[in-house]
């Protein structure tokens, strides 16, 4: 899979993870989605898709 294809899938995945985190009222699911969001951020940075240092912290 190319870098661009990987990034496209990562961005889609991260959007869905963030949506599920917002929608869930289960603490275990919310924490897991929070971590998945963070790992998506890390993976995008590793492929040179540089955004914020820590998006969640910066939004607060």
């Amino acid at each position, binding site marked *: 899979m190319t*870098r661009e294809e990987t990034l496209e899938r990562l961005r889609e995945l991260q959007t869905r993870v963030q949506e599920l985190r917002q929608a869930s009222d289960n603490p275990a699911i919310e924490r897991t989605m929070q*971590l998945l969001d*963070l*790992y998506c*951020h*890390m993976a995008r*940075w*590793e*492929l*040179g898709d*540089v*955004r*914020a*240092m*820590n998006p*969640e*912290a*910066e939004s*607060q």
Partner: protein
Amino acid sequence: MKLYKPAVEAQKFWNPYTQTMARADLDRLHLRKLQTAIEYAYAKSPMYRKLLDRHKVKPAQVRTMDDFIKRVPFIDKKEILDAQAVSPPFGDALAISEDFFHQRFATSGSTGAPLHIPLTYHSAELWGESWVYLYWATGIRARHSFYFPFNWGIFAAFWSAYMGVRRLGATVVSGGGLDSKARLRQIEQYRPDVMLATPTYALYLGETAREMGVDLAKTSISTVIVSGEPGGSIPATRHAIEALWGARCYELYGIAEIGPTNPGCPLQEGNHLCEDWYHALVVDESGNPVPYGEVGEHIVTSYIQDGQPLIKYRTHDLVRWTDQPCGCGSTWLYYPGGVLGRTDHMIIVKGVNVYPAAVEALLHRVSGLSEHYEVHVDRDAANDFVTVKAEARSDVDGTRYADIGRDAAGVFKSVIGVSIDVTVQAPGSLPRYELKAKRFFDHRPAGHRWQLAGRGQA
């Protein structure tokens, strides 16, 4: 196979995308990361906002790498300590709500107040990630197990290595709360593949093993990874560890307050800057970057420290950097010989630079000396002068100590060209350290040590 697909497990690099990227592309990517880190620090860290305002720099003005080099100020440990003192423990250095804290570390404060280090979950994961580049490059995979022969405490020490083992998916065996003999018994019981320790402690376990009648070369350990002190990139020290353990020895160079910046090269002669998560400059005393191939002070920017950002941080470590292709295949900046010394340990004897790492390397050439030594530096009216205290090996008769000292002084004179007095002492007469060993004792007035001056210094 555990965790990884066979084709992935066979990959040479942990992140082939960046570890083989052309230098120009890496530098372009660094500029974007640096701009991101500066924007973050300016927005979130009162310490950085004050520092950049004092130097009349706004994040938007850092448009090129040259802007970064010339306009953005260095920062030193003292400034962080001052910022923390505003409202301890973190004060103005803190850039994030404590809600995001995952772990707190502190330095020992042996040279002043302890420096407090906040880690978020994000930064802890990335400290671990920085170790995985080394694990992966040296053939360590998720099926392997790691032994940690030290006590887990408030010091960052090998915590980040542990985070790396978790990140890789391998197994941890902890030797915390045990003495050295019990740790060796654990190694025999659990049969780990990898051991992490300071070079000093890896060698010290050899003394314990001899007392117990254990041959370390026959244990399960096939890889020793050293950190915390120079040694893994000093051939004589590395060879001594490898001979003792019957294992390959690699190193990682890191700094407590900024993390594991340089995973060792698998070819063992130096280390690479972890360019996914760190940027570095190597500068001379005037603050200008030295050309590739030359020695200077290592200045590091972290893309990890979202709790306490550090940009152009003065490490006081002396390194030689090069952008030449490395035999391991990585394009990341390479530091042959690892850390060569400290700016505050720079010794100039009659015009000749003497690096503590060179002193250690040469001591290993002298027959009859053990790996335990201390370097003492003082100054007379015009010159630094050096004396070395070194322990003899346990099988050497005390009547030979003076001759061995003369042999060592002769080696220094012939290789470095300067006179260094060497006092040989009985085995066990110098202190032993589980973590960072204190080997360098500087008795010179402060004004005779390295001073970074000029552009950009706060």
